């Protein structure tokens, strides 16, 4: 049964990382500190591609699933997404997603990628829920996750400190039952 449709959406496709190319892309992406600050709670910093490649080679754990996000029209690598922190007993995983190429922001590419991750998580991994956290100062991210079906589950008050003030951590989650209901509505 040859099937690559599960990981193919309307705008993007999820593919296994090619470490060398990915590290080179990341070196460019983190030069845009807005990318790092939307994605990471740790201080934004600059890393050479070689070091990031070494990090993948040394630290890569089989219990995290990495995907490169590629645009369907020209197969360009525009971002990446991970599913990790699996709790197979409760059926939970955490998702992270980032688009490094700015010109793809705010056009539905991230939401399309997230829909693919959710389809993979529920249909293939048989998870019961998918979790994420997102920073208060990232309304575009929050809207995208809402559009993909995530529900708000609370806020960690004043969790982050950036630009001299504190910001909440927004927690979101989607249950398998909610995802299934969304699929049913789409068919109707």
């Amino acid at each position: 049964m040859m099937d690559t449709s599960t990981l193919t959406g309307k705008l993007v496709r999820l593919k296994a990382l090619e470490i060398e190319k990915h590290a080179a892309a990341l070196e460019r992406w983190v030069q845009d500190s807005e990318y790092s600050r939307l994605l990471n709670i740790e201080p934004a910093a600059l890393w050479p591609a070689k070091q990031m490649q070494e990090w993948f080679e040394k630290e890569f754990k089989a219990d995290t699933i990495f995907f490169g996000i590629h645009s369907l029209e020209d197969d360009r690598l525009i971002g990446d997404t991970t599913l990790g922190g699996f709790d197979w007993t409760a059926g939970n995983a955490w998702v992270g997603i980032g688009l490094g190429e700015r010109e793809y922001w705010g056009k539905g590419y991230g939401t399309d990628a997230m829909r693919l991750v959710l389809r993979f998580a529920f249909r293939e991994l048989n998870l019961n829920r998918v979790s994420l956290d997102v920073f208060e100062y990232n309304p575009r991210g929050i809207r995208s996750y809402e559009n993909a079906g995530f529900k708000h589950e609370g806020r960690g008050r004043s969790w982050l400190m950036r630009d001299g003030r504190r910001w909440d951590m927004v927690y979101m989650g989607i249950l398998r039952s909610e995802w299934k209901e969304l699929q049913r509505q789409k068919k109707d």
Partner: protein
Amino acid sequence: MIGTQLFSGVNLRLAAVDAEKDAAQESVWTHDLSYAAQMRQAIAHPLMALEIKKQYQENVKESSEKGTQFFFAIRLKTDDRLIGFMHLPWMSWSNRSTFLRIGIGETVDLLQYGCEAVEMALGYIFNELNLYRVTAPVPGYNLEYAALYEGTGFVLEVHQREMCYRAGRRWDMLLYGCLAEDWEKLKKEVES
């Protein structure tokens, strides 16, 4: 003058972990799966003293080499009996934010000494580590811990729905948060 005794409370003291002896004791406690889930993020199951000892050694190593975690034993001052552990498993220094896991082995000790243990942890977190907030995760079935944090200045901030599985059903994961100002308020209430 500053408060000099961070590790000595009314009834309790925080102590360095004794990898051999404390691991043997905690192995007994992990047979209570609610305790095991409260102290560790991993799937709750009874742990061998051997694996617990290895975890302690990793905690201490990471603590001294990277300063990204702190891990102490909680003991009674009167007879030095070990009653539980306090673990700050991960620090975000740039955000001045951390996580807190307190586990007390016996329910009777949890009810009697839990508040004091949390207050000592908060004193360390805010007075010595200079942090601004702490998050305490509590699986929804651990009612004693939820009550403990609610009584010590924490606010229930997040319900991660169906995040836990125990005793044949799903439970929410509760995230409690305490900010420096919540703690200041608590101290004033205790003093007045």
